[in-house]
């Protein structure tokens, strides 16, 4: 496992270096975005698959697509800032010798992403403030805490990648939107491949042995992270910015929609399959 693990990470580092780019020169930024265009396809928006999608007029829906995309990129850049801080805390610790080199590249690339998503938001809209407040008081033993941290990183990247894949190939979106999502997806696919290796490795080092009490706290914290992340896509500020009057009631109503739970299942599908295959969590339905 050790040699194969190191070899996979070395290949991913080589691939990252081979695809190196300067984010400040990589994109052609248009002066403005078409006022009447879509910035996110309607089915990817938080109103997707719900009666509210049909109830909104096209003008409001297009405005919402702008603010939902600002929210998505804001979540991405805030999340990536957290990832960089988390990973920086660990890359020179024991157990990370084989992955340290990869994670230095990872931090380079995450810094690129934070820059270009912030640039997009500032040019064409705004960055929504980070609304993340972690209030979990239970402490896990250090190895389990590190494992959960890297699992959270993996889930965060896989959820974002679902959007990146769709938006990079959607011809109804402006070229700059497709390009940002395509570049992000290309980098993230390496991060996800590495993340799965790292999570498997850390899980093996844990020996799969969680006491029943530890499992309860672990699954509670994991679920909290998943649900919090999913609910972040329903930021009431973006509904208000799109001109929807009762932004809080609108958010509540969307979160009650069975179709949204189905969509959340799609967003999480590959992550949940990974959790089941590895045996990390067997009953994944209860995680979201």
């Amino acid at each position, binding site marked *: 496992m050790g040699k194969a693990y190191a070899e996979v990470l070395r290949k991913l580092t080589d691939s990252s270096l081979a695809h190196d780019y300067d984010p400040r020169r990589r994109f052609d930024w248009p002066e403005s975005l078409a006022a009447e265009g879509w910035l996110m396809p309607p089915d990817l928006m938080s109103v997707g698959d719900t009666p509210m999608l049909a109830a909104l007029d096209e003008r409001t829906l297009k405005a919402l697509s702008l603010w939902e995309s600002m929210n998505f990129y804001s979540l991405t850049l805030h999340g990536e800032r957290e990832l960089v801080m988390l990973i920086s805390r660990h890359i020179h610790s024991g157990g990370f010798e084989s992955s340290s080199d990869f994670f230095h590249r990872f931090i380079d690339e995450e810094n690129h992403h934070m820059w270009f998503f912030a640039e997009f938001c500032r040019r064409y809209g705004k960055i929504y*403030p*980070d*609304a*993340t*407040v*972690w*209030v*979990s*008081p239970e402490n896990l033993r250090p190895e389990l805490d590190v494992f959960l941290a890297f699992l959270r990183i993996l889930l965060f990247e896989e959820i974002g990648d679902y959007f990146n894949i769709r938006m990079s190939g959607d011809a109804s979106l402006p070229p700059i939107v497709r390009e940002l999502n395509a570049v992000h997806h290309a980098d993230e696919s390496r991060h996800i491949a590495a993340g799965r290796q790292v999570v498997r490795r850390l899980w093996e080092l844990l020996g799969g042995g969680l006491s029943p009490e530890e499992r309860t706290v672990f699954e509670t914290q994991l679920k*909290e*992270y998943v*649900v*919090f992340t999913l*609910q972040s896509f329903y930021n*009431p500020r973006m509904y208000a910015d799109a001109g929807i009057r009762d932004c*809080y*009631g609108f*958010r509540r109503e969307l979160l009650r929609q069975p179709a949204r739970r189905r969509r959340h299942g799609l967003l999480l599908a590959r992550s949940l399959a990974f959790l089941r295959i590895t045996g990390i969590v067997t009953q994944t339905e209860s995680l979201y």
Partner: protein
Amino acid sequence: MAKERVDELKQWLLRERPDVKDLGLDTDLIDNRILDSVTFINFVYFMEEFTGKKIPLASGSAANSFRTLRMIRDEFMEEQNNEQNQITL
């Protein structure tokens, strides 16, 4: 008036956590896991809707302002500060 408004917050929390039977003004909402990260943000949005004021979360100290109903009342319901000695839950 102040008591009814704090009661509204208390009722919201008890609806979210039906296993909790009662809450005092000084019950620690975080240490007692009345609020977790998910209910915390939903509680913030409820507070915003209820008070008509946006609550900035980016300060990093937001969680500490939400530790107890008394702290929430004192921090976010300024007009009720004069009545704080009259409130009992």
